[in-house]
């Protein structure tokens, strides 16, 4: 018996073991954008937790921000004949083939958190533009519809940056006396945004009433720079995501508000829909938007 045939035997036995297991439990394959991201990590945790309660087997893989890798992962889910797939897409266009392939194989697929060009069987997430609208409305309310605003953008060209910019500008258009003095990228990064804010303090100084940062990290950087310049009390800062650090800062009265994206619910709802689809049950709505919450402290 040569090595090849030993492998063949092992493989067959292995597959038999797999398919036996499959009979008593549903298997859901999950491909996540990046486990290095705190928010994505929270969504994955929620899926895993709800999977335990629902007694289904969850296989979670990390696409490490590569849509190519993500498509390959979905292909391997298809060949393992999972009962349903949850996809947290890396990219709008490039992750689309993953959705198409699953549908060709007649395996239900649910997108969570962000969308793809090809329409999946169900989508669970939040509208990024909506979060920016909420943040901007808070600012507009605080300055009573009149004042100068600075916007710190995420990584230019990414879906989240584009959507949040669109949402913010929609609100600005409503208030003619709200003036966007400048908008620059802080690349989602605390240190970069801190430097940016320091530069802006030099050029705009006392003319600024509010700052909108497209994520919490950048909001915290701006707050730090404003505090060092001792003008934080005069400037209202709002950011998005609701990470732990930001909520703590809101509690301490530094950051003024953060818009919380509900990771827990995105995870648990996407799994609920995936299970329903795997059991061939009818779902009432194929697009499920989880509302944001405003956090302004305890």
């Amino acid at each position: 018996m040569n090595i090849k045939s030993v492998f063949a035997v092992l493989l067959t036995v292995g597959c038999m073991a797999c398919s036996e297991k499959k009979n008593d439990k549903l298997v859901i394959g999950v491909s996540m954008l990046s486990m290095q991201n705190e928010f994505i990590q929270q969504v994955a945790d929620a899926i895993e937790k709800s999977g335990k309660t629902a007694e289904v087997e969850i296989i979670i893989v990390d696409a490490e921000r590569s849509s190519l890798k993500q498509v390959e992962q979905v292909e391997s889910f298809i060949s393992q004949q999972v009962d349903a797939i949850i996809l947290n897409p890396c990219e709008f266009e490039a992750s689309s083939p993953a959705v198409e392939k699953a549908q060709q194989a007649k395996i239900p697929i649910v997108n969570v958190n962000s969308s793809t060009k090809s329409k999946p069987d169900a989508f669970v997430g939040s509208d990024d533009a909506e979060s920016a609208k909420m943040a901007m409305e808070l600012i507009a309310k605080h300055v009573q519809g009149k004042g100068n605003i600075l916007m710190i953008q995420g990584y230019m060209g990414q879906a989240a940056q584009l959507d949040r910019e669109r949402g913010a500008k929609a609100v600005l258009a409503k208030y003619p006396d709200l003036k966007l003095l400048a908008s620059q990228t802080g690349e989602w990064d605390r240190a970069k945004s801190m430097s940016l804010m320091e530069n802006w303090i030099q050029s705009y100084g006392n003319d600024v009433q509010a700052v909108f940062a497209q994520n919490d990290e950048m909001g915290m950087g701006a707050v730090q720079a404003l505090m060092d310049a001792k003008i934080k009390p005069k400037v209202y800062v709002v950011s998005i995501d609701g990470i732990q650090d930001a909520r703590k800062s809101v509690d301490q009265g530094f950051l003024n508000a953060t818009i919380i994206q509900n990771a827990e619910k995105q995870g648990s709802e996407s799994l609920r829909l995936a299970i329903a689809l795997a059991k061939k049950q009818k779902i009432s709505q194929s697009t499920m938007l989880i509302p944001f919450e405003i956090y302004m402290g305890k």
Partner: protein
Amino acid sequence: MKKIFLKSPTGGIFVALVFVCLLFSGLTSKFFTPMNLSVILNQVSVNAILAFGVTFVIISGGIDLSLGSLLAVCGVVVALLSQQGEFPLAFAFLLTLVVGVLMGAFNGFVVVLTKVPPFIVTLGTMTIGRGLALLLSNGRPISDLNESLNVLGNGTVGGIPIPILFLIGSFIICQIILTKTVFGRYVKAIGGNEMAAFVSGVRVNRIKIYVYMLSGFFAALAGILLTARINTGQPNAGLGFELDAIAAVIIGGTSTRGGKGTITGTLLGVLFIGVINNGLDLINVSAYWQQVIMGGIIILAVVLDLVYQKLKK
């Protein structure tokens, strides 16, 4: 006067720096103020310290791509050690610097023992370092740090922000090491002609390891400063910092082929990048254009420098 100026190896970049300063002064009255100049120096301090360290590596003919990751690891380590009242701050700093030096030594040993090009070795440690930083911090920012750490990052002594004092201190130390010590001469000798240096009795391997340790030390110092400045330990801090630091070194006239280079040049290179970043924010150039302009100016500066070197001959 003209002669001295032309003779200086950093003449080209100096002219370029003066040029961008004049340009921004003309474009906005907010640029050439004592306050803004202090902001610029404060902002470039982290990049400057990284760049000083890697100048030695590049002069010796090597490269260190792991700087940004080493900075992140050390930033996380110092944050963990200085969480509310855990250890005295001095102990936290010391241990963090040791971590940086050891990681640098690892780079050096692998380069020397395996003869794998430093580009590949440090590319590997860059990924390892990033992973370690995420592991140590669980992928989350570490906050609630010792209050004194914040003073280090954002306080002043006699009106001068503390990071600027670190910048000046590191500059003086590196300048002395490179120009006044035997070690400095050996680094240049190895970068100029490794074989010749070896034949004339320079312990090439040992010097190379020291060089990477030095780079690790300054990466750790930069990590401490960055953590102090943003008042949190960030596993994702310093992404791409190695490129900014290396760019500053090259703009400052250090040869990519090794053998030649100055700390003053590196400082001018760092200031050049810092001034452009600050100036573009002040005059509010669109975020897309900023990157295009930044890249264009960097290429222009290096071309200017080359023209200068020709003029000298």
